[in-house]
């Protein structure tokens, strides 16, 4: 811990510095790799949708001695078309999932299960989902997503600046994409709780990005007037200064989410808690990465295109050239130059 604190100090002063903004191509290609893999996984495997999206029924018997085999026999005897999935959930439950059933079929299945296991009808947890329900909640989720992106874009553009808003949104889209991709790759179940998780990631990922951008803005406020460092360099310092903060906030955010995941997956076996926290856990991790490695470099790239910033980069380069024999190119300050500049201070 103390070591991390010490690192925080060195990062703050610029004494230790990671070239995050400058090495953007590295992070971009890393992310691009993931995104391509995500698209591939989505295209080939698709998402493993829960019955809430396909329509179907789920019956959970609360009895420790119930076996998968028995449950399967009982339900197959009812004679339903389509596939029946039977799983053991935790230690004391067996869950049967079927395709869409009507009310009579649902009662028949319940009757078969109560008979087989000698439990009351009330102790069976059931969930019936109509076939069009999934479309409805998907539609709502997509509306929510679009509204969120628009409102946040406007909000950030007002509070910060339009280019920061663009970079923040890019990072968010990146996070959701990769998270969904991981779901497709691993084949985790996607339920409405998962969707809540995905949507919450939006807010979370932005929280981290906001913290970093606030510092970037502070550091770059008078960057043109001072003509000492380029926009990218100032932004890079901001990222370095906030790395410890970002890591801490992410760890603190991940701890409760991890607790829910642990309890939800361990104690309950399946359901809202597990689905929600798994999505959050993955999303938070990806969000931390993007708020450090994707959003700030992208922002710097956008800003460096501005004539004022290019002129600034030239001035900074020529200054460095005047002081040092070894100058970097106009927009790139080499590592050595940077190290010497630090040394001078």
């Amino acid at each position, binding site marked *: 811990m103390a070591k991390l604190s010490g690192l925080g100090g060195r990062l703050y002063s610029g004494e230790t510095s990671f070239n995050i903004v400058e090495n953007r191509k590295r992070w971009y290609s890393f992310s691009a790799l993931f995104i391509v893999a995500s698209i591939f996984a989505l295209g080939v495997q698709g998402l493993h949708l829960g019955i809430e999206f396909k329509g179907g029924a789920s019956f959970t018997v609360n009895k420790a001695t119930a076996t998968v085999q028995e449950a399967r026999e009982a339900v197959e005897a009812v004679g339903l078309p389509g596939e029946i999935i039977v799983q053991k959930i935790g230690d004391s439950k067996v869950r049967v999932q079927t395709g869409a059933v009507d009310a009579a079929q649902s009662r028949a299945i319940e009757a078969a299960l109560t008979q087989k296991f000698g439990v009351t009808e009330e102790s069976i947890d059931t969930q019936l989902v109509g076939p069009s329900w999934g479309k409805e909640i998907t539609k709502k989720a997509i509306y929510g997503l679009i509204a969120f992106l628009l409102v946040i874009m406007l909000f950030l553009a007002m509070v910060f600046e339009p280019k920061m808003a663009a970079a923040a949104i890019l990072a968010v889209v990146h996070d959701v994409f990769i998270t969904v991709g991981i779901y497709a790759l691993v084949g985790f179940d996607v339920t409405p709780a998962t969707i809540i998780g995905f949507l919450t990631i939006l807010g979370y990922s932005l929280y981290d990005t906001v913290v970093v951008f606030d510092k970037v803005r502070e550091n770059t406020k008078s960057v043109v007037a001072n003509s000492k460092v380029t926009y990218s360099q100032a932004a890079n310092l901001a990222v370095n200064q906030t790395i410890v903060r970002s890591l801490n906030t992410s760890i603190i955010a991940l*701890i409760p989410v991890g607790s829910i995941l642990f309890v939800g997956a361990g104690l309950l076996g399946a359901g809202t808690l597990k689905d929600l926290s798994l999505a959050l856990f993955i999303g938070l991790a990806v969000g931390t990465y993007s708020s450090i490695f994707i959003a700030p470099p992208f922002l710097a790239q956008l800003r460096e295109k501005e004539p004022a910033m290019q002129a600034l980069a030239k001035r900074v380069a020529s200054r460095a050239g005047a002081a040092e024999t070894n100058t970097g190119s106009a927009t790139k300050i080499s590592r050595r130059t940077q190290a010497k500049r630090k040394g001078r201070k």
Partner: protein
Amino acid sequence: MSTPQTPVKTPVKTSGRPLRALTLLAVILVGLLGTALIQGADSVRLGLDLRGGTSVTLQPRASNADNKVTSEAIDQAVSIIRQRVNSLGVAESEVTAQGSGTNRQIVISVPGESGRRVVDLVGQTAELRFRQVLAESSALAGIGGGEATPTGGVSAEINARFAALDCTNPANLQGTGADSPNDTIVACARTGSAKYILGPAEVLGQQVSKASAGIDQQGASAWFVSLTFDGEGTRAFGAQTARVTSLPSPQNQVAIVLDGLVVSAPSIREAIPSGEAQITGSFSQVEAQDLANVLKYGSLPLAFDRGEVQQVSPTLGEDQLRAGLLAGALGMGLVLIFSVAYYRGLGIAIVGSLGIAAAMLYLLFLVLGKSIGFTLTLAGIAGSIVAIGVTADSFIVYFERIRDELREGKTLRTAVETGWSRARRTIIVADLVSLIAAFLLYFFAVGGVRGFAFTLGLTTIIDLLIVFLFTKPIVTVLSRWKFFASGHPLSGLSPKSVGMKEKNAKISQTESPLEA
């Protein structure tokens, strides 16, 4: 490399009055506690997924091409379904429309095990029909109903059923919608105050083209309902009224039957061939408008897709509640351990802040449960646990800012104030982003998601309050203590833990490796 040049803008104002903020916080907490006590709220209202019960979500859709899903139609559907659900007589049953405008779902929740019946009950479509009254009786219990035996045309079987019909029994006010239009039926008034024998339906609900409530310009405040029929309806209603108007009471009455229950049974004064009718009576404004709505939408221009049915046994409910609480305790505990391990003495401020935030959230759950019927669901619990992270994030943003200021060589007391003026902005912006997310999530979602979004939003607001009214003031107070001000190694603010080098900072010529 130069450090950022941000001039400290304004001298910080809050420094001198941490006590004022703390007092305000205490007032808020005591106020909440008092409200909860006055309301008599002693426990948080739990959702069905935490105590067992049945919830059904219905998706309205237009039943045919002519109809549209309108906001009024959904309201009407909600009231019809509520009538049916209330007839079950289960306390705390709820029927609500969630979402906005026409894009709403109807959510029915019935706690406990009796909720199973609700599934069959709510899916049926309600129909509006105009039937001639053959007999009316206010003798509600089975006995004595026979005295209103109608003249002819009614079989003994119907008479027997009429005599046996008990409209004080809630089960008979369920409204099954199972009345066949071609049969003579027995039916209760919707309020349970009368029972009827009714002839076959002569006019159907979809033949009503317009209905509205109005007030008589001449009369003092006589509300009436006017309705207009379409072509077919005009003919049918004309014929019906012409036939019954000369008959003795109650056979000159035409009952407006919705969902198998009589909403109103006005007597017909004259034949109405024009297709324009007025129903007068001693209506209040609300009654007139309700009747107009029934006539307008009573035929339920909507059909419902059964979106989702969820039946949770009390066992599972208990398990989920326990798991939720356990996850919360675990998450809170670990966050506290991390905070104290990392921030040492400053960790006290985090422990206190999170403790107060938790207390405030609990009180709000109590108060909101009573005042707006807030129920805590599993997703809501998850939302509050996730919020521990959001709340603690604000403290970290602030504390790291203080450390930044210390690194620039400021004294602790100055650092606490200048750090605050900078962190404040970040915290507000970041929390606003969370709030926007919570609001939109609530607005666009249905069911469990709303519970999650609601608690997330609530906790974000609490976070703002706590940071302003507790964390900042308490850090100001702490910074005056020698233990912190002198940078004691355990204070979390010692030069070493902040990462300042004593004198000439050693300069590393190469990049630090990442494993540092």
